[in-house]
């Protein structure tokens, strides 16, 4: 029977595209497997990973430790480096064969190239750069209770259009983070989403899962004729990039360092060192060329949720806040008492960062010595 993406009853299980580069699993994959486990449990189905590469069996079992029941592995020299054509063909063929009802990808530069292509070929819906996913309606309502301005007790969540309890509800920021939208894909399967890296929480690693996970190698067809592009080389950035997403403490600088850029960055680095953290930056700082793009936090940079986020001389444009407002504690230092950053800060100091930060470094050293 011909594949039909509208035959909803034929689809089952949750799939995660497990992105690897140069044979190493991308950390976002573990976040997606963890989130996929939650969705699979809410539906009472299995969670499967789909892993493409060349000789990548060795990194498949670890996915079981984060909750995967099964991993479909596709090995081929043609899958060594990512190409849109090869990856789309293998994934589309696999989806047509196994028919998952939900499929999620990391919203990386690869995931956002691949997922739209797959969705268009499979005739199904795709929601980009999601920050929250729910199947269970109660979970969604509780998310809105704290995560939105919606008066949930006086809102009707039922609709005649589709079953609100079994359809994936995909929530994402829109209009630069000014609005949030929850998207559904009720008439086609799989419901597809790309998920913003750093947003979903990784589950505790479970050694038992590694032993239990089933590794499967389905037959597949892929020839050179299927691939219309040629990867000439893959180059890793020479400089070690800052790991903002994994950091517990982030000290970020904004336009406020303008009068002494080097001095401002040095102060931020020293404060980050005292805390055991890393240095981030606002878009203005990166656009001005004062710091490299890997430091950028915000809508067009990285989304972070460290334990403590210290914003030095960052006014707090909504695009910046979109990338850091989920931090556990936010501390702002700014000359301008009306800076929007103070609206979301747990603690704020109004003052010149060049005067305040050296004092703060000393105070933290003193307090840590006492504690």
């Amino acid at each position, binding site marked *: 029977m011909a594949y039909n993406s509208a035959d909803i009853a034929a689809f089952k299980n949750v799939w995660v595209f497990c992105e690897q580069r140069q044979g190493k699993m991308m950390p976002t994959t573990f976040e997606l497997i963890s989130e996929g486990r939650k969705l699979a449990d809410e539906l009472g189905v299995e969670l499967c990973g789909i892993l493409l590469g060349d000789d990548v069996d060795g990194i498949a079992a670890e996915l079981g430790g984060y909750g995967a029941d099964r991993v479909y592995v596709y090995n081929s020299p043609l899958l060594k480096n990512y190409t849109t054509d090869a990856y789309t063909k293998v994934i589309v063929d696999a989806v047509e064969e196994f028919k998952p009802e939900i499929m999620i990808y990391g919203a990386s530069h690869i995931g956002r190239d691949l997922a739209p292509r797959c969705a268009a070929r499979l005739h199904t*819906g795709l929601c980009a750069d999601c920050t929250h996913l729910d199947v269970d309606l109660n979970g969604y309502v509780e998310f809105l209770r704290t995560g939105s301005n919606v008066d949930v007790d006086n809102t009707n969540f039922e609709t005649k259009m589709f079953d609100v309890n079994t359809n994936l509800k995909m929530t994402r920021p829109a209009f630069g983070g000014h609005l949030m939208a929850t998207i559904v894909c009720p008439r086609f399967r799989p419901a597809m989403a790309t998920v913003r890296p750093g947003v979903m929480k990784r589950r505790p690693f479970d050694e038992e899962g590694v032993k239990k996970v089933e590794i499967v190698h389905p037959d597949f067809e892929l020839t050179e004729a299927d691939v219309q*592009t040629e990867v000439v080389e893959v180059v890793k950035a020479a400089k070690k990039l800052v790991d903002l997403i994994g950091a517990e403490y982030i000290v970020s600088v904004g336009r406020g360092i303008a009068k002494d850029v080097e001095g401002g960055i040095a102060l931020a680095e020293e404060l980050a060192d005292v805390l055991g953290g890393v240095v981030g930056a606002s878009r203005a700082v990166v656009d001005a060329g004062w710091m490299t793009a890997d430091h950028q936090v915000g809508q067009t940079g990285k989304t972070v949720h460290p334990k403590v986020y210290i914003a030095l001389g960052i006014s707090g444009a909504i695009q910046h806040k979109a990338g850091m407002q989920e931090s556990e504690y936010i501390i702002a230092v700014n000359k301008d008492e009306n800076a929007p950053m103070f609206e979301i800060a747990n603690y704020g100091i109004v003052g010149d960062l060049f005067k305040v930060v050296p004092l703060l470094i000393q*105070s933290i050293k003193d307090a840590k010595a006492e504690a």
Partner: protein
Amino acid sequence: MKIMVTVKQVPDTSGRVAVNEDGTLNRASMQTIINPDDLNAVEEALSLKDKYGCKVVAFTMGPMQAEPMLRELLAMGVDETVLISAREFGGSDTYATSQIIAAAIDTYGIDDDDIIIAGRQAIDGDTAQVGPQIAEKLHLPQVTYAGEVKKDGNVLTVKRMLEDGYMTVKVSTPCMITCIKELNDPRYMSFRGTIECWEKPLTIMDYNALKDHELIDATTIGLKGSPTNIYKSFAPPVKEPGMILEGSGKETTDQLAHILTGKHII
């Protein structure tokens, strides 16, 4: 050889954004601009035109109010613009939008040495999906996140940016490239361009112009043909204000440090 560029008119989300009480966007109160990444796409097309003397055609889908934006593009040096506009196309998600724009580009005609260039993503939706989905519907290869494009005959060598570096990819025309802002610095309208733009062609493709194309079907375009639907839209919560400490001297930083250690935050 010609370059086809896809462009979108968007609300300027970098300025003040007004949200209605029901959680929808108050578009009437907002300025519209040419989507920033699309200006990089236009610039790339125009610099190829400077070098090879090819024609540049810009496509946009939207209401008739998009005309001033198209005149701006013509004033920058674009040779021809196509406005895809019909009530039937309204409410389209990325899938449906791609079907319609792909049908328009295909109707216009794609030659073997043509290049289609799109911006990486539009600032209103930030999806980055329409470029790749147009390429899929046209069965063309794509290279996204282009940070550098070199042309040698009908082969493009593209530096495709990744989060942790880049890959160099070769692709033959016809193909789709989506570009990031680092690709180039968009030019301004020229004085002569602002006069000439009124003489250049601005074609409207409405429903009748596209309805017989194989990609255009009531089940695959517009709100009804869109696989995704908006279930709810809402504003993020307003956070309770925190505590602004008094002063900015050593007593203040000591106070903050003690709060942080006292609560085991650091």
